[in-house]
């Protein structure tokens, strides 16, 4: 394939300033998102998935954040743009769906106004046209009574309806590229299913490239085409969804899978990943970052400078430790972390 990807992230490093020193929360990440593709990014909280998403949209506070590398959107490096130029992309060709629909909406603005806000900035439409389009959008995201909702305030809507409004805002200008940051985490299962079905339908219609950020592997299995697993700011495994679910290789990916109480089968004990995600300041910067959480794997199994290896076509795994990885036989031996 010689076709240029829609979004190309090259060696992106996002560092935050803590007490006058910069610490990388996203460390040298390279990713591609193609048109009409859903790329899921999975990981525990604190592993840098949201930091990555916000870096792409450049929504971090620029005073204490350092962005290095390239984020190419349709060949244009977003990191070199001025704020005004960046604003031409935000909400226009690039949309974002936020996690918590209550805080993402302005409580003092009517739903209609909020949807029109993006159109006002990017599209040259008359008021009547904008209203017609807003109503159409509300209908598209499955809101039963668009005329009424158009005039309502966010607090009058239920969680699922609010998330639909957030989606309507994100797709108002028919973006080519969407970031969905935990779009269903705040919702009930039944509503989650509806929202996921809706997102997939819209994605098919508009051929959008989507980065879906989530910690729920079930959501990934339902939505994604490709999956990137992140740990401590790095991508540790990336593959298409079928490969990743049938043949997860990296110890972190495998541990994650084993710790879910899957609805399909009931085993008695769940696997517990020892320790916690290291905080930004205490992140090990050399060697395999996951090594401290799998201490029963001998040190020589890890690489000194772990890189991504292509184990099969388009299936990349970081570090060589996956070859020697096994779960501890005696789960009792690695009980709870005594801190």
């Amino acid at each position, binding site marked *: 394939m010689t076709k240029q990807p829609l979004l190309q992230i090259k060696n992106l490093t996002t560092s935050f300033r803590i007490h006058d020193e910069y610490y990388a929360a996203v460390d040298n990440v390279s990713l591609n998102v193609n048109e009409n593709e859903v790329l899921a990014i999975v990981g525990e909280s604190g592993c840098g998935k949201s930091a990555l998403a916000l870096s792409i949209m450049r929504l971090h506070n620029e005073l204490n954040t350092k962005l290095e590398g390239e984020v190419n959107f349709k060949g244009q490096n977003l990191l070199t743009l001025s704020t005004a130029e960046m604003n031409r992309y935000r909400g226009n060709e690039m949309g974002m769906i936020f996690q918590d629909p209550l805080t993402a909406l302005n409580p003092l603005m009517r739903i209609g106004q909020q949807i029109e806000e993006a159109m006002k900035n990017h599209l040259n439409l008359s008021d009547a046209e904008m209203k017609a389009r807003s109503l159409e959008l509300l209908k598209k995201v499955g809101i039963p009574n668009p005329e009424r909702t158009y005039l309502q305030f966010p607090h009058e809507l239920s969680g699922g309806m609010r998330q639909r409004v957030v989606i309507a805002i994100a797709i108002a200008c028919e973006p080519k590229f969407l970031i969905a940051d935990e779009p269903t985490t705040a919702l009930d299962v039944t509503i989650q299913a509806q929202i996921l*079905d809706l997102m997939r339908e819209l994605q098919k219609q508009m051929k959008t490239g989507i980065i879906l950020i989530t910690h729920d592997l079930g959501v990934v299995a339902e939505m994604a085409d490709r999956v990137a697993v992140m740990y401590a700011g790095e991508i540790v495994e990336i593959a298409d969804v079928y490969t990743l679910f049938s043949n997860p290789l990296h110890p972190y990916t495998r541990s994650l899978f084993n710790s879910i109480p899957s609805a399909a089968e009931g085993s008695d004990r769940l696997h517990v990943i020892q320790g916690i995600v290291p905080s930004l300041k205490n992140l090990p910067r050399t060697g395999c970052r996951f090594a401290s959480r799998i201490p029963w794997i001998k040190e020589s199994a890890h690489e000194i400078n772990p890189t991504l290896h292509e184990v099969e076509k388009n299936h990349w795994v970081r570090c060589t430790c996956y070859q020697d990885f096994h779960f501890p036989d005696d789960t009792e031996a690695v009980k709870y972390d005594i801190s």
Partner: protein
Amino acid sequence: MTFLKVENLKVYYPVRGGFFRRVIDHVKAVDDITFELKEGETYGLVGESGCGKTTTGRTIIGLNRPTAGKIFFNDIELTKLKRRDFYQYRKDIQMIFQDPYSSLNPRKRVLDIIAEPIRNFEKLSPNEEKTKVMDVLEKVGLSPESIYKYPHEFSGGQRQRIGIARALTLNPKLIIADEPVSALDVSVQAQVLNFMKDIQKEFNLTYLFISHDLGIIRHMCDRIGIMYRGRLVEEGTKDEIFEYPQHIYTKRLLSSIPQMNPEERIQHTAFRRKVNEEFKNNYDKYFDAEGKIFDLKPISETHSVALP
């Protein structure tokens, strides 16, 4: 003897309005539910947010007053007791709260948080109290030295274990766990769930496990009650609910769980659409003329469904 029995429990919240803010209507948060818990088992209460599962839990522990109905604990009717008599049963029923970030007082040390229930019920010297707290802390896998720390010094999973330690200090018989892991990451979640299973064996605890996550419910519970709009729509053992769901709402809930197998997602979506259509089309088969859910009817010894 029944361990815990909830009989025709109703909890209505008044809606006030109009002249003199009179009561003009009621929100029927819990509307006539009946269920029983046997000692040592885990009973799961499942449903969407707003279906009344939390209200049920809070009413059993005495944080809400029931509008009508009875709650029996070891054959004693809790709902009839005076405040002072009820007090001693508080010891036997404890609660684990949902959010470990807001259920621990940030201005108290771990020692004071965990010792609070002890101070209410037992007269211990400061030293005895400290030993006891250190004991429980060790049981939940936290180092005994952390008694002088404050909640913000702990991670989410550790905080939830402090919450569990607090619930364990008085050797309760029944623990009401209201979404104990929904605020936690998967790996931490696994840790807390394993731990809850361990202490259940150790202390012969009975859990009322309230959750909306069916994966966790399946992992933890022996029997399950499905709630919808303040009423139970189906009740049965874990296998009955997951393998042979009878009520359309149960089916809908089960079909909403994301499948872990990406190869089957197209079939699964189709299946979900079919169930949703059935839910819409056969609405009056499962709900009466006012949209109310029917009473539970047993279809086998352990399995009951709300059908006309």
